[in-house]
């Protein structure tokens, strides 16, 4: 799935329309059938909507952490109402949302880094808050690069990371979205994280914030 990612996600927003019911239903059917074009067409829609709802959630409740599951579920309900979707479409939809979430976060992190280089200084916002966010942006971009490398090595491993980490999906959901066994998901998840922790750990000193940015809550 990661091979379908645009390396520079300049996704054409707002060009796709959600109100075209029949074509949307078709898209979901194609997605379930594993057609790559369907994935490419649906991704911008999900990207756009997910970003909107994530922002709205954060605007309303900035102190709470986002729940991808809640956001995606809300989004899926909306899409499925529009498309009279089959329940089996949900897993595939979640898979798209996971990729969209990755794009959203990476785009945002890139913008942060660009602002940091040339942008205006801000007052009002607490300084350490900016620091923390900049550190987050850096760590996310590093992870993103490592994940691209992982995708070149083994596409499926990267997809599992997208589903589990970016999509907040369960093992079962990941298995359904990627059409593989739950056991395989579990194994891939272990291997992928092994490879990633090796890659990320190698390029960074222990104090550079990796451990802070890749929290170990279990």
């Amino acid at each position, binding site marked *: 799935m990661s091979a379908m990612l645009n390396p520079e996600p300049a996704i054409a927003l707002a060009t796709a329309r959600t109100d075209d019911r029949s074509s949307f239903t078709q898209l979901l059917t194609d997605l379930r059938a594993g057609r790559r074009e369907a994935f490419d067409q649906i991704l911008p829609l999900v990207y756009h909507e997910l*970003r*909107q*709802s*994530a*922002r*709205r959630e*954060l*605007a*309303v*409740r*900035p102190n*709470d*952490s*986002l*729940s*991808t599951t*809640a956001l995606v579920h809300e989004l899926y309900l*909306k899409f499925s109402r529009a498309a009279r979707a089959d329940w089996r479409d949900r897993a595939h939809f979640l898979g798209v949302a996971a990729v969209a*979430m*990755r794009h959203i*976060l990476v785009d*945002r*992190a890139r913008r942060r880094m660009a602002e940091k280089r040339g942008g*205006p200084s*801000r*007052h*009002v*916002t607490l300084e350490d808050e*900016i620091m*923390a*966010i900049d550190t*987050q942006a850096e760590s*996310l971009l590093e992870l993103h690069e*490592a994940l691209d*490398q*992982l995708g*070149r*090595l*083994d596409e499926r491993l990267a997809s599992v*990371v997208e589903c*589990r*980490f*970016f*999509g907040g999906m369960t093992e079962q959901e990941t298995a359904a979205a990627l059409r593989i066994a739950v056991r395989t998901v579990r*194994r891939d998840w*272990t*291997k*992928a*994280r*092994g*490879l*990633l*922790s*090796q*890659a990320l*750990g190698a390029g960074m000193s222990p104090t550079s914030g990796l451990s802070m940015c*890749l*929290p*170990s809550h*279990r």
Partner: protein
Amino acid sequence: MTLGSLSRDRWKTIEPLLDAALELEPAQRAAFLDSTCRGDTALRAEVESLLAACELGTSILETPAAVTYGPLLTEPEPPLPQLLGGRYRILREIGRGGMATVYLADDPKHRRQVAVKTLHAGMARILGREQFTREIEIAAGLSHPHILPLHDSGEEESEGSDEHSFLYFVSPFAAGESLRDRLRREPRLSAAEVVRLGREIALALDYAHRRGVIHLDIKPENILLQEGHAVIADFGIARAVSNSTSDDTRERAMPILGTPSYMSPEQAVGARDVDGRSDIYSLGCVLYELATGERPVPHPKYGESVQATARTSAFRTLHKRVSPELASVILRAMARPKDDRFATAGDFARALIGASRERKRRHWHRAVLAVAATASLAISLMAPWASRHVTTLDADLIAVAPFDVGAPSLAPWKNGLVDVMSRNLDSAGSLRTVPASIVIDHWQGRADAESARMLGQVTGARLVLFGGLLATGDSVRATVSVLDVETGRTIAQVEHRDVADRIDRLSDSLSASVLRKLQRTRRIDAGIARVK
């Protein structure tokens, strides 16, 4: 050897070994690699290092990306202009909440300090401004001793950015603490305090609800304490926000505002027909916390409110701290189906008082009295106006008599003003009012001193307010007297005039004047100065 330098071919060699080794217990892996790598030390080293990394790797990426990196999506706050609305000079930040940041500001025009709240940029962007302004105006029309007034509101362009503008609103700067601060000092409040504060808040809610304004975010942080009295802050803000955002053709879900611990079940699921009973629920939760020192559900998941099992234990906790009467009043407010709660916040306030009176009486007649079945029963049993033989008059109790009306068009205000003015006067200082329904039941005759005296005798109210409305052209003139039933003297007389379709405003003026007069003869807290 890490990701970047690992080739696909090499990975194809390594992966099966890694898979197989991962299947084994750690102790068996060395022997397995001995037999499979057969002297290829480089291969073995790579697999071993990867195995070790897989062990370490189980501690990363466990938390979903949205949680770890969610803050990246928050909008940075653009610089706030030094002067808002050409008038308020920002001094410093004094607080930051979910939706807004609060600043202390100077209002040189009125030589006072004010609290300016600016909505966060992300929030401001998703709002429809016109709708927001309209709702804010409604909230600004609220005038009640237990509601923090809204002085002003507006929109300010940010310097050097057309994308951002600030929506802000201005309130008096309250130097006192919030109910949350008080809870930090005192883990639990006495039952009497719970009743007193609960009643003040409920009456303010009732007043606002009758004007169609719902708060939607009642919580200890939003209740300020001024000279010991409860004052609700941010009235109408949440409502303004939710109305503004629901007004959207792309059928997106309305953002769910409020704080999960205090949010009514219907509000938590984003229902559109949320009404005043949602605030009643939230206030129930606040009183529960005041009484027990715990939140009804310490950390509810987003979207979930008090669940059935939690409710049972909530009941037990509450019963340990307060009388069964008060517990049932609080829990009734917290009923999951809104139809099971009090119909109005005014009913809630009366039930609170009823429950506390019941408690006092239980102390005196512990042996006699069985547990009152419901709070409303408690009221009818215990309230002084339930008895025809009141011997002592309550100096803090005032009854507002039905008005004499001079024209058929004014007929609805005969009893209507009883309701409105009773609520206006209630809870000013120690003053309490006899419920309108009781007054109307017991009222006989015209609005004169004799009927007023009778009303006082029946209801136990030492003070009785009575008067009349006269239509003259397009305007209405109201005259009002307050009788001290015990001495038989009229202690206040006021007169006001207003246009016929603004009787509401007229009643507010009357209430304020009456309170001002009463203030001369009795101590009523400064809060009443805000009734305009």
